[in-house]
C-alpha cells in the first residue's frame, strides 16, 4: 500500500487512527499499531512479510544475546552474525540478479537469474534493523526485551516503505511512553497534507512531464526539451521523496512519535557537501555512523572511506550500474570540494555556491534517471548541445506551458514553510492572533487535502486514448 492512494487515505488511515485512539493504554496502542502495520505491509506484499518477520526476529535475538554477553567476545560474533543475515536478505532480494549478471559477463559462466521481486521497503527496514543491533552492541541504546515492540519499530507503517530510516535511539523512549495533544495531532495533519500535496499534485504531474521528454526518443528531443525534462525530474524526485518523508513525519506526530527530519531544503545548499547534509539526512547519517567512521573517518584513509561510502550510497538506491556511477560522481565532487576547493566556496558569495550546487545536482540526476546506462551519453550530448536535434523545436511550447508549474516548484523548494510558521508563531502571541493562525491552518489543511484527493482521483482517469474504434 502507498500513502498516496485513495484506499489508504479514505479507509486505512482513518480506521487505524480510530482504533488506535480507543484506549490510552500504551500496550494496547502498540499492539494496534503493530497489527495495522503488518496489515499495511501484507496488503501489497503478502508473501514477503515473512522476510521482515524473520529478519526482525534474528535481530531481536541478537540484541538479547549481545546484552546477555556484554563485554565478551561472543557479543561481537552475535552482532556480526545478525548483520550478515540481515544484509544477506537485502543482497538476495535486491542485488542477486545484478551480481549474477556481472558474473555471467565472464565467458563460460552462466548462472540462472532469479525471478524474485524486490519486497517493498526492504532497503529501509533492513537498515533500521541493523542500526538497532549495532547500537545495542555499542551500548548506545537499551536492549528491547519485547519482540513485538521491536517488530513495531521495524514495521511501523508511516516509515516502512519509503523512510526516513528512523534510528531506534530516536524512538526507543517513545515506544514505551508517548502522548499526543490536539495541537500536535493537528500539526501532524498539516505536515501530512503538505507531503501528500507535494507527492500527488506536484511530483505526479512532473512525472508526466518527465515521461514526455526524457522518456521519449532521445533522438527527438531538443536542447530545451532535454533541460525541461531534467528540470522536471529534479523537482519530481525531491517532491516525491521529501513528500513521503513529510507524510511519514506527519503521521508519526498523529501517533505520538517524533521522527527526525529527513530533508532540510536541500536545493538551497551552497555546496555539494552541504547538499548531502540536507538531502535524505537519515541515509547520510546512517552511512556516516555505521560505515564511514568505523572505517576510520577523517583520520585515516579518508579518500578510500569516502569512495566506499559513496559507492554504497549509490548502490543502495538500486541494483544497477547507473546508481554506482551516480555515487561515484558524488564521490568525485565531494573529494574535489574537500581537497581542492577547501572551503573557498564558503568564502565566495553564496549565490555562486548555490548555482554551482544546483547545476551539479541537476547533472547528477541524469545518471540517476537513466537506468539504461547506454542512454546516458546521448542524454549528455543533447543537454550540452552536441546533438543534431536543434535548440528549441516544439519543446519551446512545452517549456512555456509549464512555466507556472516550475514557478510553483521553485517556491515550494524554498524554506517558505518555515518562514510562514515562524511568522505564525509571532502572530499567535495574542489571543486574536492564535485564532487567526489556527483558522488559516485549518483552511490550509482542508484545501490541500481536497486538492490532493481530486488529483488522486484525477490520476485514475485513464481514458483509453488510443482505442481505434
Amino acid at each position: 500500500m502507498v500513502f498516496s492512494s485513495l484506499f489508504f487515505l479514505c479507509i486505512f488511515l482513518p480506521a487505524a487512527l480510530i482504533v488506535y485512539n480507543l484506549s490510552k493504554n500504551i500496550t494496547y496502542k502498540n499492539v494496534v499499531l503493530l497489527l495495522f502495520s503488518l496489515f499495511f505491509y501484507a496488503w501489497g506484499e503478502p508473501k514477503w512479510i515473512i522476510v521482515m518477520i524473520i529478519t526482525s526476529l534474528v535481530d531481536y535475538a541478537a540484541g538479547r544475546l549481545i546484552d546477555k554477553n556484554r563485554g565478551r567476545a561472543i557479543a561481537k560474533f552475535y552482532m556480526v552474525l545478525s548483520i550478515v543475515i540481515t544484509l544477506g536478505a537485502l543482497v538476495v532480494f535486491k542485488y542477486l540478479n545484478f551480481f549474477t549478471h556481472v558474473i555471467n559477463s565472464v565467458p563460460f559462466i552462466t548462472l540462472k537469474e532469479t525471478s524474485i521481486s524486490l519486497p517493498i521497503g526492504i532497503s529501509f527496514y533492513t537498515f533500521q534493523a541493523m542500526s538497532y543491533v549495532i547500537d545495542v552492541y555499542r551500548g548506545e541504546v537499551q536492549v528491547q526485551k519485547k519482540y513485538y515492540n521491536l517488530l513495531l519499530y521495524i514495521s511501523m507503517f508511516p516509515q516502512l516503505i519509503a523512510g526516513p530510516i528512523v534510528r531506534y535511539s530516536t524512538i526507543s523512549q517513545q515506544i514505551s511512553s508517548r502522548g499526543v495533544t490536539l495541537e500536535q495531532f493537528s500539526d501532524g495533519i498539516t505536515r501530512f497534507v503538505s507531503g501528500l500535496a507535494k507527492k500527488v499534485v506536484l511530483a505526479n504531474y512532473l512525472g508526466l512531464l518527465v515521461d514526455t521528454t526524457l522518456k521519449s526518443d532521445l533522438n527527438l528531443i531538443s536542447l530545451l526539451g532535454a533541460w525541461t525534462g531534467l528540470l522536471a525530474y529534479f523537482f519530481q524526485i525531491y517532491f516525491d521523496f521529501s513528500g513521503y518523508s513529510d507524510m511519514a513525519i506527519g503521521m508519526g506526530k498523529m501517533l505520538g512519535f517524533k521522527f527526525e527530519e529527513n530533508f532540510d531544503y536541500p536545493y538551497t545548499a551552497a555546496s555539494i557537501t552541504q547538499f548531502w547534509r540536507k538531502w535524505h539526512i537519515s541515509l547520510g547519517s546512517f552511512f556516516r555512523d555505521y560505515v564511514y567512521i568505523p572505517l576510520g573517518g577523517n583520520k585515516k584513509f579518508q579518500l578510500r572511506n569516502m569512495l566506499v561510502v559513496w559507492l554504497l550510497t549509490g548502490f543502495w538506491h538500486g541494483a544497477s550500474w547507473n546508481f554506482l556511477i551516480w555515487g561515484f560522481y558524488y564521490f568525485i565532487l565531494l573529494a574535489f570540494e574537500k581537497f581542492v576547493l577547501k572551503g573557498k566556496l564558503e568564502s565566495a558569495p553564496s549565490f555562486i555556491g548555490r548555482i554551482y550546487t544546483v547545476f551539479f545536482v541537476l547533472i547528477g540526476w541524469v545518471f540517476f534517471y537513466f537506468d539504461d546506462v547506454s542512454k546516458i551519453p546521448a542524454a549528455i550530448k543533447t543537454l550540452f548541445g552536441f546533438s543534431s536535434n536543434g535548440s528549441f523545436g516544439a519543446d519551446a511550447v512545452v517549456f512555456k506551458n509549464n512555466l507556472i508549474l516550475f514557478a510553483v516548484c521553485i517556491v515550494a523548494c524554498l524554506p517558505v514553510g518555515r518562514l510562514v510558521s515562524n511568522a505564525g508563531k509571532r502572530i499567535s502571541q495574542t489571543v486574536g492572533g492564535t485564532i487567526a493562525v489556527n483558522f488559516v491552518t485549518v483552511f490550509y489543511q482542508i484545501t490541500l487535502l481536497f486538492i490532493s484527493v481530486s488529483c488522486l482521483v484525477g490520476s485514475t482517469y485513464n481514458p483509453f486514448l488510443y482505442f481505434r474504434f
Partner: protein
Amino acid sequence: MTENNDDFFDDDFDFSMFEDEKGERENELRKEALKIEQRKNEKEKSIYSKMISFLSIFLCFGFLIFLFFLSVTDAEKTVSQSEKRTLASKPDFSLSELFSGRWATEYEDYYSDSFPMRDAFISFSKKIENVFTRFAGSKNNGVIVKIEKNEDDFAGEGITFKDKQTTSKKEQTTAGNITQKNSKNEKYADDKNAKIARSVLIVDNRAMEMFGYTESLLKNYAHMVNSVAGKLGNSAQVYSLVAPTSVEFYGTKEYRTGYHSQYDAINKLYSYMDSSVKTVNAYPELSAHSDDYIYFRTDHHWTARGAYYAYTAFCDLKHIAPRTLETYASHGKIPGDFLGTLYDLTKSDILAKNPDYVEYFCPEGVDGYIYDNAKMENPMSFLVVAKNTAASNKYLAFIAGDQPLEKIVTPNKNGKKIIVLKESYGNAFVPFLCNDYEEIYVVDPRKLTFDLKDFIMANSINDVLLINYAFAIGNTTYTDAVWEMIK
C-alpha cells in the same frame, strides 16, 4: 542639554528613593496582575487552539470518512463514457489471489474506479492541471500542451474495453492459421504510438495530436509495404495511402516543420517504396481543401469529407472519375453533438463549448457483413453508414467501427474487388469505394490475422489498399500485425 533632562526624569532609582515601599508593592502587584493576565491569555489561547485543532481534525477526517461512507452506499457504475473503458469491478476473492498480492491491487483499482463523485473530482483536478499548463501568453499562441499517460500507467491496468457494438468477440481459435486477437494487444499497440504522439496541442478550439518521425520508422513501414507487394507479386496491385493528420494543416509552425513535418515524412516514405507499389498522394488534395471541414476538432480522425478528398486522389491514380459529393442523395448530419477522443484526453472547456458534428455521404444499395473469422462463417449484417447511430462516439457510424473482417457488396457488376487493410482512419474512407468496386473486403490486421495471399486468391481480389494515418507509421504493433499476414 536635552539628554541630561531625560536622564533626570527617567532615573528609576531617584523615584524609588521617594516612593519607598509603597511603590515596590505596587510594582509587585502589577507584575502579579500581568502574570495572571498572561496566564489567562495563555489559557484562552490554548482553549482556542485546542478547539480549532479539534475542528481541523474533525474536518479532515470527517471529509475522508464521509467519502468512505459515500463509496459504500454509492450505486456501482460499470462503464465510463468519457474514458471509453469499463471500470474495474470488484475482484473475486481467493486465497491464491490474496497471497500473490493481486487481489489487493485489483481491489485498489476497483476502489478508485468506483470512487464517489469521481467525475466531479476528475474535472476539478483537470482545472488544477490547467492552472499549471495555461501560461498567460498571447491569445494567438494560446497553446496548451496536454501530456498523456505513458506505457507504464497502462501496463498495470489490466482492463480491456469491450466494444458493445460488435458481435460477441469470443476469444477462440477457429481454424488453423486464424486467431482472434484480444483487445489487450491493441492497447499496447497504441501506447507505442503514444510515444510518438507525445502530446496534444490545442490551438483556438481545435485539439491535435503532435506528430514526429524518424528515418528508421519510415523505412520500417516502407519495408512492410514493399514486402506485402513482393509477397503478392502479380496476384494483386498494392496501393499505399498515408493520410496526414490535422496538426499538419492547423498546428503552429513549430509542429509542422523539421521532424514534425508530415509532408516530409509522407514524401520520404513514398520514395522508399518499390515501384510495384502505387502510392496515393492524398496530401495535396487535403491541403487544397483545408478551409473545409475535413478534420474533427475534438477527435483525432478525419471527417467523411476529408476522407473523400483522399478518395479523389485514389481515383486520380486509377484514372477513374470520382463521384462528386453533390450526387449523394443520402447526405446529412448524424443527429447530436460529437466530442471525440481528444476531448476525452484533454477535458478542455474550449472543446466542450465547440463540439463537432459528423457529416455523412451514404452509398446506395449496399450490403455489409461482419465476420470474426477469415472463412467468413457466421456473418452479421451491418450498415455501411449508420445514419442514426446512438453511440456517443459518432465516428463509429462509419462501417461499424473497427471490425475484424467486413465484406461490402455493391450493386456494381464490374467484377472489381478490393481488400482494404486499415486502422480507424480507413473507416470514413471505405464507403466511397462503393462507387467503383463490386466487392470490398475490409480487415483490421490487429483484430484478425490470416494469410493475405491465400485470401486474395480465394476471393479473386484485384486491388489491395493499405490505408493508414501518419501516426500508424510508428505503430509497430500495427505493422507487426500486417507482417503476420504475409508470413
